[in-house]
């Protein structure tokens, strides 16, 4: 699905990502984790072609991604980004309808029946039909995130990139969003790359984790393989204890406060 070869990119001659080599076949939910400033968002930006690589190449479905037109990329790859402007006066349905833009020609001024069906389907899948007529400004954080995902689904992508979709949400909404992502992955065969800050959520929901550190790919593998306490302590420079979750058996990371450290 997506093959990244020796990717180096950054802003203003400063390199944020160095020599990233990853092959993502697509049948897994891939989580990208790492400390702040380790290049997680930059990786998503490079894949969605917001920034151009300095060197290296990326192949999407076997084709060099830089040779595909922006519009076609937008039909295949959708992004749920963290710092997107949300036009608060727009209605939910109109907003989700913007996701159809890559499928419409310059001279198509109205939505076709198919456009409307896809938008409706995206609303249904994300459970946002009930507030399709409300304006974005009146939604809660969790509802807004669902709507943003619905807009991405309206693009009918094959690959969905999510940049910290659970940030600022309470646990019920975190779980709701990630359950939705897993469900979409299963039912729609949608490939997922998701940046997550919360290591335990990443462990629970992702099949494979990419651990970035200082712009380099530090470790790549299953959660059991990546979430080793020695690796976490090395990369995050924080003492942790890793135990298996009593629910799923996946690794669970526990922080060790200073007081506890002094006691033990």
């Amino acid at each position, binding site marked *: 699905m997506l093959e990244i070869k020796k990717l180096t990119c950054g*802003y*203003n001659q400063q390199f944020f990502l160095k020599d990233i080599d990853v092959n993502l076949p697509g049948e897994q939910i891939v989580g990208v984790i790492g400390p702040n400033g380790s290049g997680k968002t930059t990786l998503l*930006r490079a894949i*969605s*072609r*917001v920034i151009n690589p300095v060197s290296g190449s990326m192949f999407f479905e076997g084709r060099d991604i830089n040779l595909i*037109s*922006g*519009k*076609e*990329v*937008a*039909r295949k790859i*959708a*992004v749920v*980004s963290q*710092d*997107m*402007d*949300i*036009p*608060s*006066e*727009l209605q939910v349905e*109109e907003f989700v309808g*913007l*996701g159809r*833009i*890559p499928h*419409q020609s*310059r*001279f198509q*001024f*109205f*939505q076709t029946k198919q456009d*409307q069906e896809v938008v409706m389907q995206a609303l249904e899948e994300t459970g946002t039909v009930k507030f399709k007529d409300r304006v974005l*400004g009146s939604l809660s954080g969790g509802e807004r995130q669902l709507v943003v995902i619905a807009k991405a689904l309206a*693009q009918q992508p094959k690959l969905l990139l999510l940049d910290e979709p659970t940030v600022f949400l309470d646990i019920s909404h975190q779980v709701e969003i990630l359950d939705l992502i897993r469900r979409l992955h299963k039912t729609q065969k949608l490939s997922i790359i998701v940046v997550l800050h919360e290591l335990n959520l990443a462990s629970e929901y992702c099949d494979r984790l990419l651990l970035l550190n200082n712009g380099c790919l530090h470790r790549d593998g299953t959660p059991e393989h990546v979430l080793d306490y020695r690796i976490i302590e090395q990369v995050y420079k924080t003492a942790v204890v890793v135990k298996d979750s009593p629910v799923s058996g996946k690794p669970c990371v526990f922080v060790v406060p200073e007081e506890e450290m002094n006691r033990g």
Partner: protein
Amino acid sequence: MKTKVVHWAVWIVLLGLILLGISIIALVSGTTDISFSEIIRLFQYKDLSNPHYSIIFQIRLPRILLGFAVGSALSIAGVILQGMFRNPLVEPYTLGISGGAVLGVCLIVVFRLHKLLGVIALPIAGSLGAICVVLLVYFLSMRKGMIKIQGLLLSGVMISFICSSLVMLIMAVMRAEDVHGIIFWIMGSLEQSSWFLINSVTVVSLIGLGVAYCFCRDLNAFSLGEEGAKHLGVNTETTKKILFLLASILTGMSVSVAGVIGFVGLVIPHFMRIYVGSDHRILLVASSLAGAAFLIGCDTLARIIIAPQELPVGVITGIVGGIVFIYALICKKGVNKC
């Protein structure tokens, strides 16, 4: 979707009727009383011997047409710029585009090039001046390959100041008989004797609307921010360049023919956004109609308020537009607290 189209159609018809109504009022009002039925007769029989014929066809009708063209061009430019930058304060004036156009036209007038090259030199000079300012503002506010909106507004305002100072400099060294004309023109007036200029502004503003409409989806995508637009496959750099160019030509043409008419590009798109929504598919058309109606209305007011003398229409649009804008801000706060 169906209801939305109906909603849009209702707005277009409504604004069209308002435009028609205001145009008729503009035709019948003035220092000479000409009744509506007489105007109909003039249109039917083309009675050249009737003294009212020339008042209608050589004074009032050209003004209405020019008001339509300039009002619509300025509103479209405002919609385009506000859509690109997602900022309600951006318009041809705040970005210094009008200032550049004024400077361009002043230079032509002071060197008397319009006598040499013909009257077409004025709109071309205006557009070139506008384009130069846009390029300057664009490069001044480019940081790390991205445009920063604060930088854009600041450099726009500064360039606007520089341009108006240069215009004053030109006026200070100019022959007295030219100064009077330029001052009146700068204050904004729809009085224009050249049918050629009136026709060309009309054509340009209609083409401008058409071109802008082809970019309505891109403008809608820009509401998600530049990165959001890129994620939807919009080629943001090229689109921005084309739209900048379009806004400069529209502004340059308007300024060179009708002078500086402020507030139309700021107030009209703002209001239309409140009433018809921010979808550019309707916003562009609605703003164009409303801008035309607004300017024709203001011009009629300017003609009759201290008749037989005339006020510069820029003064009226400034005062009316500013007051209505503040009123709308207060009302909006009361209604939905945003």
